[in-house]
């Protein structure tokens, strides 16, 4: 029914003669099928998996051990152990959920710095910002340094540390209006007697000033926001 060429058949028979004496090893096949590792897991995949595992171990376990054990290659003169991240405030409202986290760390020159980050966790919403500053650079302190080191802002939010004297914070916006900030006292676990403020404002607006007042309404600190620090988003 299907074509076979006699000459070619003769050649092919000579090249690889049929080995009728060989019957294979069915029992060995069955044994291997039930005992060997799945052959679908190719050696290359094993190598890749081991490599990825090695990288993960290197990136997680080694730094953790280095920090906990104080290994020399991750320390420097004057360093102190940093505090772990502390959740300072959470806004659980479904329409605007966010979290403010802070921790103490060391700068390369050995000074203690306060780092804080604000992160939205609404589904599908990205963004967030983080800043670090000298622990003395809090709203309410006299002679604040560069304003960029005293607070952080991203589209529609500004936040930062304040002294315990600061009872209320308001933000002056570019359209002349003011918005009240939420002010919270940091948990003791942070290791710094501070408050934090978070102010939300329309993303399309610029924030001009952050004003801190004491419990009697007196202004005890003002941060003037440079225009270049404003992140505008039309919405």
């Amino acid at each position, binding site marked *: *029914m*299907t*074509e*076979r*060429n006699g*000459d*070619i*058949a003769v*050649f*092919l*028979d*000579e*090249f*690889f003669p*049929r*080995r*009728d004496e*060989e*019957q*294979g*090893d*069915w029992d*060995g*096949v*069955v044994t*291997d*099928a*039930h005992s*060997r590792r*799945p*052959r*679908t897991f190719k050696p290359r995949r094993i190598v890749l998996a081991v490599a990825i595992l090695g990288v993960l171990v290197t990136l997680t376990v080694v730094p953790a051990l280095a920090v906990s054990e104080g290994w020399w290659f991750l320390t420097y003169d004057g360093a102190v152990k940093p505090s772990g991240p502390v959740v300072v405030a959470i806004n659980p409202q479904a329409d605007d959920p966010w979290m403010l986290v802070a921790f103490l760390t060391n700068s390369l020159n050995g000074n203690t710095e306060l780092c804080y980050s604000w992160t939205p966790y609404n589904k599908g919403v990205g963004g967030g910002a983080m800043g670090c500053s000298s622990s003395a650079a809090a709203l309410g302190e006299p002679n604040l340094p560069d304003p960029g080191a005293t607070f952080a802002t991203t589209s529609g939010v500004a936040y930062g540390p304040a002294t315990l004297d600061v009872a209320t914070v308001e933000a002056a916006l570019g359209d002349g209006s003011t918005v009240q900030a939420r002010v919270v006292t940091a948990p003791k676990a942070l290791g710094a007697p501070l408050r934090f403020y978070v102010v939300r404002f329309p993303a399309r607006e610029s924030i001009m000033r952050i004003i801190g007042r004491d419990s009697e309404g007196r202004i005890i600190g003002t941060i003037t926001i440079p225009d270049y620090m404003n992140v505008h988003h039309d919405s």
Partner: protein
Amino acid sequence: MNSRKRRAVSGASLIDLESAYRGRYPDLLRVATAIAGSVESGRDAVHDAFVDLIRARRNYRQNGHLEAWAWAAVVNAARKQTRRRDSLPLLEEALGGPSTSEGENDRHGAVRAAIARLPERQRLALFLRYYADLDYATIAETLGTAPGTVAAALHAAHETLRQTLQEVEDND
């Protein structure tokens, strides 16, 4: 595996696979050897193929032939053997055979070289046709192509090998 078994239901039994293995082992080994380039690699290929078939037998849901499913596994395992050696089989060496005269050597050498130069689809179709005596439909199912494509591939392979033989005879 001599009798073609159609499977509309899922799964293949261990008995079916054992029957296929024991019933066609010399042919399976021959095809695998031809593809992989050595008897040892051919044995490994058949072994590995049936290990995989046993493990995957519950996933067998084809409405096609168990025979073609098994052949496809063997062909693929043999091709993997060639890749493990980081090169295609040196068929011009592997396709060795006894020769009795210088002229015979020329003919064998020319045909060996011609087979080695065939496109892979033609070469696989040739091995399945001549070493396993499969029909076009089963070869097509094994290679995942159409019977017409198998016919065309075999026709082209025959033409190449006929021309090779003719050239050798003309030179004698």
